[in-house]
């Protein structure tokens, strides 16, 4: 990176954060601090919802996913528009009418205090741990690629977010997210334009798409009923619907983004904006990855994209083996390029038999390249069983650092930071709000009237969660497996939380005690299943939700009708 990159990077990141801090420094109202400005329109809500969901991982991992496995991952988002319609029609009007600060406050009104605490507690546990990962993962990738100190990146990111989120609360989060998403949009368009410009002369986007498609990277929709396939239209519709419904309808980091708009109409339009744009946006990011795959068929790529990890071992005692693999890879890439050019030539000849032969040769050459890459990963594992062999997250950042002009490099690094700041700010805002409203104020009901004190407490809890996230991210390097454990933890809890909310909305005869004990039992069952079975952890979303609903209905039938609770009457 040169001076131009640093100017763009620091100018956008610090500038946006300072703008958010300055514009919201006089926030005194609890409503504005927790829900945002009363004048927030649908555009800001829509961009804020989008920025909260799109973390830095989205822009580092998803192009890598397109590069390695193709664009089939887009099916994961098929349930999202349907979930957002349900949230708009059912969840949102109730949240608005009750005027709640958090989704869990609604549980207290509908059921009782203990169910509210259970929902809020599960959210804090899951999101509190995930907040550390949100800043750790992009930091470790940037640290590896740029040679920057990991602890400094984590502290810079973490403290910058704390500064404006603590000062301006929800209003600052929405305000900064709007500009951060503009930086992200500008950066991704720049990367796409540069990538297309760098494709071989005469190939163009269509030619590149034909190559990617012929090598199996452009299978966007898979109608297969094979349960072993990870991404199909069916898993996308069913799993995606449950995941999106629990994320957008019950996760406070999202709920907080859309409940505070100028009107119900603006909240709904903000969500519909996402329902319309999310799939096309993910498609473009994945397509970028597939085009990167084509680009690296003509430009010699490294055998392993995490070059820092590779060089660490290539200079060690087994250097000769690593050098031999590099040579094998260079030969395989050259043969693959030749096979692609032969196939393009055969296509132009319009001779089906010649084209089929050339296609088979091209696929075989591509498999040889992949085989060398697999061998390289195996060599890394043999040299060090703890070596990180997943390099797809490093594909896009490699392209950024080696192919983009100066200035654009700074912009693309800013994209990664902007995405990290935007999603992390929403997390901290939600954690601080839930701790204040659902715990602190729940146990100090008399303090509710003192607005200034409530704002002060919310700021302290937001800062505390921010510092916990920074501390966790600083120590996450000592427990790499913890990150996967947190993702699993999310799936284990998400289903039960969604189950509680679906009972609240659709099963009117079920009361607080029934749903509380059903949720505890469902959660215990999911944990036992996780410890004893070997199924994909995404299924626990569905299992937890279904079991929670079934147990609630059964338990209520056994308990019989119950008297309304004090909090329940308020609803």
């Amino acid at each position, binding site marked *: 990176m040169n001076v131009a990159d640093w100017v763009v990077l620091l100018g956008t990141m610090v500038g946006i954060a300072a703008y958010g801090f300055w514009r919201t420094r006089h926030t005194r109202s609890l409503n504005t601090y927790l829900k945002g400005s009363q004048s927030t329109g649908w555009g800001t809500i829509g961009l804020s919802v989008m920025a909260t969901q799109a973390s830095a991982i989205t822009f580092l991992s998803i192009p890598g996913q397109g590069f390695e496995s193709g664009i089939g991952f887009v099916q994961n988002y098929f349930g999202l*528009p349907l979930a957002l*319609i349900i949230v*708009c029609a059912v969840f949102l*009007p109730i949240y608005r009418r009750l005027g709640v600060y958090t989704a869990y406050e609604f549980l207290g009104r509908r059921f009782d205090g203990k169910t509210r605490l259970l929902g809020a507690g599960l959210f804090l546990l899951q999101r509190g741990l995930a907040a550390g990962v949100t800043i750790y993962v992009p930091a470790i990738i940037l640290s590896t690629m740029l040679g920057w100190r990991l602890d400094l990146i984590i502290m810079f990111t973490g403290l910058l977010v704390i500064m404006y989120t603590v000062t301006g609360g929800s209003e600052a989060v929405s305000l900064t997210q709007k500009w951060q998403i503009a930086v992200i949009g500008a950066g991704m368009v720049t990367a796409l334009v540069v990538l297309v410009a760098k494709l071989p002369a005469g190939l163009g986007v269509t030619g590149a798409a034909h190559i990617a498609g012929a090598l199996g990277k*452009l299978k966007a*929709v898979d109608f297969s009923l094979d349960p072993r396939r990870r991404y199909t239209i069916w898993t996308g519709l069913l799993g995606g619907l449950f995941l999106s419904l629990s994320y957008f309808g019950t996760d406070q980091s999202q709920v907080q983004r859309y409940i505070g708009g100028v009107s119900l109409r603006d909240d*709904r339009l903000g969500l519909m904006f996402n*329902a319309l744009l999310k799939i096309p946006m993910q*498609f473009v990011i994945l397509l970028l990855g597939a085009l990167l795959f084509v680009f690296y068929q003509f430009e010699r790529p490294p055998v392993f994209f995490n070059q820092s990890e590779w060089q660490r071992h290539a200079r060690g005692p087994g250097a000769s083996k690593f050098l031999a693999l590099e040579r094998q890879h260079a030969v395989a890439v050259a043969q693959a390029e030749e096979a692609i050019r032969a196939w393009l030539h055969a296509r132009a000849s319009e001779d089906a038999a010649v084209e089929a032969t050339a296609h088979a040769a091209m696929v075989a050459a591509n498999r040889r390249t992949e085989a060398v890459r697999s061998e390289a990963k195996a060599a890394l594992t043999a040299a060090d069983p703890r070596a990180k062999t997943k390099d797809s997250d490093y594909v896009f950042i490699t392209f950024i650092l080696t192919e983009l002009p100066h200035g654009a490099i700074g912009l693309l690094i800013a994209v990664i930071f902007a995405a990290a700041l935007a999603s992390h700010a929403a997390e901290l805002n939600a954690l601080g709000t839930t701790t204040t409203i659902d715990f602190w104020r729940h146990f100090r009901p008399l303090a509710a009237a003192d607005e200034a004190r409530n704002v002060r407490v919310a700021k302290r809890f937001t800062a505390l969660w921010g510092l916990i996230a920074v501390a966790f991210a600083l120590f996450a390097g000592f427990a790499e497996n913890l990150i996967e454990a947190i993702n699993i933890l999310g799936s284990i809890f998400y289903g039960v939380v969604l189950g509680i909310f679906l009972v609240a909305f659709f099963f009117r005869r079920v009361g607080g005690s029934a749903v509380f004990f059903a949720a505890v039992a469902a959660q215990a069952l999911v944990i036992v299943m996780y410890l004893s079975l070997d199924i994909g952890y995404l299924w626990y979303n569905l299992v937890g939700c279904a079991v929670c609903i079934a147990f609630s209905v059964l338990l209520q039938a056994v308990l019989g009708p*119950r008297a309304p609770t004090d909090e329940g009457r308020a609803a």
Partner: protein
Amino acid sequence: MTRPPLPDQRSDAEPPGLPGFRTWRAVYLFVFGWFVLVVVLLAAFTWIFS
């Protein structure tokens, strides 16, 4: 036990204020139709480039 609050009836009566859409149901149908169109286009994309 408490009855869940129903979605505000007035909220559905409130017009979306978008040209061509008189009710929220029409907006949801449009979004659903867009979703179906996107899936069909993605399926066509798969077919063309595979």
